[in-house]
């Protein structure tokens, strides 16, 4: 059982941030979430978010030694031994300790309108799809593609990593713009597509990105929000140039 000295940022909305120190012992194969839980067992006033423990709900995101991670899937073996500093995400208002206020974030996600499931692009062994025969509620068979939850778990890590957001709250943010991109890719309805591009084109939209690509670097799910932003820019430029020539 490795012993660990943990510094955890403690804060309430009306107080200055400080660090509390915990000495914990966790199993060899523990993940960082188990370390946080061990601290909580010592002090139940410690506020942190968690639910699924397998990188699907996206609630637990924090900064470990300065880097944004989902602690539920980071093994201790991947961290430096002996001690660890745990802090809340940046660029979010702090509710308490490691808990940040995600309301503004989810309001933007809702505005972006991405549906969280999609058709699977390829089979498990990497082949292109043949629609499968799946059961309908009435027991009849229907040929359709398997569906998948989107890879983005809406954990907020990309917002914390984004240098633009550390300078302004006005920016829609990588996850939100990636969601706009996804929604735009998925729909074939031309008015809806135009409205989504308008959303991306507004102040605070894709043009406010400074292209540091930190969002895509930090994403625990390989979602590439920066790529999505640049893709939207290209679509917007095409539309604007097209408009110049009366198209």
């Amino acid at each position, binding site marked *: 059982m490795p012993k660990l000295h943990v510094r955890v940022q403690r804060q309430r909305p009306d107080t200055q941030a400080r660090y509390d120190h915990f000495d914990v012992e966790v199993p060899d194969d523990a993940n960082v979430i188990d370390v946080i839980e061990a601290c909580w067992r010592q002090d139940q006033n410690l*506020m942190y978010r968690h639910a699924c*423990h397998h990188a699907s709900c996206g609630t637990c995101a924090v900064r470990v030694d300065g880097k944004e991670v989902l602690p539920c899937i980071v093994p201790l073996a991947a961290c430096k031994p002996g001690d660890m500093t745990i802090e809340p995400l940046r660029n979010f208002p702090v509710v308490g300790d490691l808990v940040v206020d995600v309301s503004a974030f989810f309001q933007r996600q809702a505005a972006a309108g991405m549906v969280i499931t999609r058709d699977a692009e390829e089979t*498990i062994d990497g082949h292109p799809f043949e629609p499968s025969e799946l059961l309908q509620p009435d027991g009849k068979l229907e040929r359709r593609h398997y569906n998948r*939850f989107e890879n983005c778990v809406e954990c907020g890590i990309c917002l914390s990593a984004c240098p633009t957001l550390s300078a302004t709250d006005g920016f829609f943010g990588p996850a939100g713009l990636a969601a706009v991109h996804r929604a735009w890719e998925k729909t074939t309805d031309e008015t809806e597509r135009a409205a989504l591009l308008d959303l991306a084109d507004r102040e605070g939209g894709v043009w406010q990105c400074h292209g540091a690509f930190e969002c895509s670097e930090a994403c625990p799910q390989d979602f590439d929000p920066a790529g999505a932003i640049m893709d939207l820019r290209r679509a917007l430029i095409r539309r604007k140039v097209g408009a110049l020539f009366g198209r």
Partner: protein
Amino acid sequence: MPAPHVVIVGAGSTGSACAHDLALRGLRVTVVERGEFSNATTGRNHCLLHSGGRYAVTDQESAIECIDENLILRKIMPDALELNDGLFVALTEEDLAFKIKFIAGCAACHIPYRELTPAQALAREPLLNPKLLAAVQVPDGVFEPWRFSMAFLASARSNGAVCRSYTEVVELVRHNGSVTGVKVLDRVTGKTETIGCDLVVNAAGPWAGEVAGFGGIEVPVQPTAGIMVTVGRRMNNMVVNRLDKPSDGDIVVPQRTTSIIGTTSWTVTDPDAIDIPPQHIQKMLEKGIELLPEIATVTTRGVGAAARPLIKRARQDERDVSRTFECFDHARDGGVEGFVSISGGKTTTARGMAEKLGDLVTRKLGLSVECRTRNTPLLSYRLFYQ
């Protein structure tokens, strides 16, 4: 006269669905949850939207509840589910013998099913153990537990419910033999306050016994833990079950980019201190490899454990304890008024459980309002934050 006020303790799938049910019936609802919403059993469960197939032989009451709710959830939260069906796979001659009972069970519980040859099964699920002898397809699905609960809470909130996380019940307020409110500790402000109400619903899952105990009331909940092992790659399109009586490590649930192997079952005393026995992890991997041999080649991504809030009954093996839920009215047999506990069940059946609870609560409060959750589409979980 203002509508009666109900406080719900605990916002797992059960408490969240109850909040939606009661708010939709026009009651004033306050939900208090000591941590993040859905952080406990619900958040960490196996994510299987049961078709009922798993219980079609051993517990048909549960099986029927599951298929009924499965079909309702497809209508009311369609965009938050992965609906790829499930396969029950026979690997041995005993499994094959079980298939006859299984199919009879599905038919008895109106669970749609389809028999597949090994070749058909492998075409759908290329990483299955190629030695399989037969497979049966049923309408299993996958949910994402946190979003599942948040969809119910978002809908409850749009109907006026107040939902407070990081707010822990520390005492039940009693007056002349009935419960008249709860005393809560707000972890953000550090202050305690009393919330008065007409009725308290105890939906604290494996902590239901502890919460009832705050008012000197007894609830026979037996926390029974189970583990889930998540691997570093998605191995299956559909849910893959072993075609056999429910046992350890017999389901691999795919979700997003991962597959989750589960589960085991052992009794714990404190649901806050579940220490995972390392041999359980090993067992999950071994069992998972029997179904999907390629699991041997991938890394483990995470291990989690949660405790089922099962109802304690004398002299039974843990796995035989009924999975269906119970709603206790503590006023029965001259007990305490104003306090109702709801426990057991599954996330899949949360809406149905809430319907029963809503019927009981409205009856107790002298109201007659119908449950409408069956046909009311839920809001997106994101709208909780609106």
